[in-house]
């Protein structure tokens, strides 16, 4: 199981490693977005660059963060693997509850960004560029944030049986 939780040589069963991955990925996405923003001139380029960010976010969603893909990093969160490589691991009630909650938190943030971007681009604010940037940010986060939150919040995964049972904290 632990071997399947490796990504770029890092042990993703450890939360600290997963947090590094999330932080580095979002910094990279931010840098890419800023670069495209400075390059974008006309409307056609802006649409092309937005599509590029969309494709990059899909890549992050499926490959880097895992998410819904059978080849993803967080494979245990994928209930039915087409590859059948981890059929013994299914989502139980705790996994599903945690996953649902992270989606709820993520989409609350995404909806807030969309609403903010919409209003900032119109009267009386008249900041269309800021509004568009927020909308593109919402697009990226909508595709990646639930998985990122799961990676960030899930504690270290245990794979070995402790020698002595852990007793509940009083």
């Amino acid at each position: 199981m632990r071997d399947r939780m490796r990504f770029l040589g890092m042990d993703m069963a450890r939360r600290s490693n997963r947090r590094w991955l999330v932080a580095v990925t979002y910094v990279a996405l931010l840098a890419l977005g800023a670069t495209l923003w400075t390059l974008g001139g006309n409307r056609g380029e802006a649409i092309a660059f937005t599509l590029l960010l969309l494709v990059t976010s899909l890549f992050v969603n499926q490959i880097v963060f895992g998410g819904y893909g059978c080849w993803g990093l967080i494979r245990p969160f994928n209930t039915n693997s087409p590859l059948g490589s981890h059929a013994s691991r299914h989502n139980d009630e705790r996994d599903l509850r945690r996953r649902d909650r992270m989606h709820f938190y993520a989409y609350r943030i995404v909806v807030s960004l969309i609403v903010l971007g919409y209003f900032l681009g119109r009267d009386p604010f008249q900041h269309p560029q800021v509004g568009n940037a927020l909308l593109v940010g919402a697009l990226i986060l909508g595709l990646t944030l639930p998985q990122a939150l799961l990676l960030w919040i899930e504690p270290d995964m245990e794979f070995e049986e402790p020698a002595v049972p852990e007793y509940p904290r009083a």
Partner: protein
Amino acid sequence: MRIYNRLAVLRAERGLTRQELAGAVNVNYQTIGFLERGDYGPSLALAFALSEFFGVPIEAIFSPRPFEPLKAWPAAGSGP
């Protein structure tokens, strides 16, 4: 609401691994760890499954109040 439990004690008494207990009640063994540490409150269905597996009432496994340690109980035969 925090739910306390005696899962670790019951599992140790029966000499079960987390994997075995998890398989018996159809959850992932990491969830057993979360339950034992008190980091997760089970659904009623899971609580019933655990109760049935151990053959004890639910209130013998789960409680809204901390369980008293066994050493605090009066020793057998030491009463009046």
